[in-house]
């Protein structure tokens, strides 16, 4: 996969994550909503930045879909938290792939930072979903 393809994949992932966080936000309690909003804002920033990078490379950024299919039903807060974890794991995987697909140091730095941010947010959700195992050894893999 080329650097451009990997960046388009990361952008597509960010689109999906932003859509997913709207679902998460609708099912969590008020005290968790600031955490959801912060995650959503971070991913919007990431989305806009990577879209700009793709444009500078001369390509058209991948567009968001009208709708996505959830990986499992999200009817309550417990499921919403699992979805949030799923979203961050997916973002981490997409950005980890960018790390491997580019030799450009600036792009790789961006990807490492995005992977790290997704891992930290993922840990924030994971400690609520599986408190005994709040981390994974290789985020994004």
């Amino acid at each position, binding site marked *: 996969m080329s650097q451009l393809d990997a960046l388009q*994949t990361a952008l*597509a*992932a960010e689109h*999906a*994550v932003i*859509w*997913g966080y709207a679902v998460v936000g609708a099912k969590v309690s008020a005290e968790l909503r600031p955490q959801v909003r912060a995650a959503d804002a971070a991913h919007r920033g990431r989305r806009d930045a990577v879209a700009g990078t793709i444009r500078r490379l001369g390509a058209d950024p991948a567009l968001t*879909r*009208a*709708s*996505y*299919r*959830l*990986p499992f039903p999200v009817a309550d807060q417990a499921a919403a938290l699992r979805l949030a974890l*799923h*979203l961050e794991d*997916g*973002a*981490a*995987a*997409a950005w*980890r*792939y960018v*790390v*491997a*697909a580019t*030799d450009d*140091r600036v792009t*790789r*730095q961006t*990807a*490492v*930072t995005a*992977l*790290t941010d*997704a*891992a*930290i947010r*993922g*840990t*924030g959700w994971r*400690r609520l979903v599986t408190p*005994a*195992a*709040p*981390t*994974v*050894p*290789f*985020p*994004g*893999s």
Partner: protein
Amino acid sequence: MLVALAIAPAGLAAACTGTPAAGPTATGPISSAPPPDPLADHLTAERRLLGSYQATIARYPALAKRLAPLRDDHRAHVTALEQALGLAPTATPTASASPTPQVTDIPPVPAAAAAALVALRNAEHAAAAERAAACLTATDTAAPLLASIAACESSHEALLS
């Protein structure tokens, strides 16, 4: 149109396993000494960090429940780096409280549990920065491994804060 929320593309899993392929310098002893693999320094650092967790848990058993998952992550990092370097795994018992034998310069555990947690947090911060910096100039094979270890260590730092 409904599209599955598959946020990583098909085939990505195979390319992103936590078990990296052995590098080209990892095929066994050769007559002239090869240049040291840059990953060797990271293996040493991960062994030291693992040793710090083991020493801290041995000194403060009350922290074991909280620290054991993080210690286990570092054990996985050591194993992955050993594999990437083509080394035979060091068959340490999983529940061993003694530091990995090759590591001799494990920092002393602070004399209070709170200070010990701060020391681990600071060590994680430094480790994540080292791994992330090295990732920028690493090979395409080593870079994702270093990036994931850095991300894990940053998540540890967040948990210890």
